[in-house]
């Protein structure tokens, strides 16, 4: 059991030696889905490197379609390093919980995403495997994505992306973590913290924050990400 975990971890680390033009630092997805769940989500990501500051914000609405599948639609706005802020892209995402939590050695799910750039003919189709494994009060979450970019404004290409998170479930409102991201020309790691505040019924507010430092080269490359998710 331990051997398969380390084999999985090894594959996760070596596969994304080549990868993506987009934002690598984003959310690390859990494979779990609950029926009846609806959510509003806001994600903020600020990346500071030698080219300047890039800011990306995502606004989303999600709705569970069944006990195992949920869908989410996104509007993505961004400010580039020239200071121009505006609508960047639209995205539709489906998440599929493949196994019951705790049933097998690890919990598994899949993620499918289609993204279209607003003013450019660029399409991005992603397929990802989502995995979570419990070790007592520690949860290890890993995502591995294959991304296909195509369109007249981009050279068609495949990209690979890995995201990982090691989270200590200390208190519902406060769960420290470490996150790792790997993609094209980017490897980053840093501390994170997240939590959940429950209200009546299925109403709850989830929050996440992480500060990721790029490990690729000597150049400055820091990303701050923040997410708020209201489930109702």
């Amino acid at each position, binding site marked *: 059991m331990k051997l398969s975990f380390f084999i999985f971890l090894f*594959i996760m680390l070596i596969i994304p030696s080549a990868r993506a033009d987009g934002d690598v630092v984003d959310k690390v997805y859990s494979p779990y889905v*609950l*029926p009846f769940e609806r959510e509003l989500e806001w994600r903020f990501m600020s990346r500071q490197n030698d080219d300047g500051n890039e800011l990306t914000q995502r606004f989303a609405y999600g709705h569970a379609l069944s006990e195992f599948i949920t869908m989410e639609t996104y509007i993505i706005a961004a400010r580039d390093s020239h200071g121009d802020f505006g609508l960047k892209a639209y995205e539709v995402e489906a998440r599929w919980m493949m*196994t019951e939590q*705790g049933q097998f*050695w690890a919990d598994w799910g899949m993620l499918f995403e289609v993204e279209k750039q607003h003013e450019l003919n660029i399409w991005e189709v992603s*397929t990802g495997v989502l995995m979570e494994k419990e070790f007592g009060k520690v949860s290890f979450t890993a995502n*591995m994505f*294959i991304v296909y970019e195509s369109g007249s404004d981009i050279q068609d290409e495949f990209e690979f992306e890995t995201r990982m998170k090691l989270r200590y479930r200390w208190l519902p409102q406060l769960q420290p973590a470490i996150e790792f991201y790997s993609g094209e020309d980017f490897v980053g790691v840093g501390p994170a913290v997240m939590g959940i505040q429950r209200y009546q019924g*299925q109403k709850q507010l989830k929050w996440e924050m992480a500060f990721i430092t790029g490990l690729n080269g000597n150049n400055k490359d820091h990303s701050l990400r923040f997410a708020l998710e209201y489930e109702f």
Partner: protein
Amino acid sequence: MHKYLQGSLLLGLLSLVTTQCYALPELVLEIRDHLFFPSQLNVPADKKLRLTIINHDNTPEEFDSFDLNREKVIFANSQTRIFIGPLNPGEYAFFGEFNPSTARGKIIVVNHTDDQNAN
């Protein structure tokens, strides 16, 4: 496209080789009038268990436990199952998210020897 298929195949194989099914001991928890019966379950430490939850109410309920790291909706007049453990000795609280003031309970995890002494 060839690389994409290769990658997809690898992801699929990863999912398959790392999943195994177990025959597990089963416990039953029932929901009636927004209460859990029994409200306390004693289970052995270091064992994986299947918890079957039967909801006799005409409304859905959500089994929720931060201690156990489990959330599961049980539809009205139906049943579901949750896999828990292996757990360390201790108390693990759970509640019904739709009726948190009434639907509450806990799982007491005991060492096998402690359990025998208690009996």
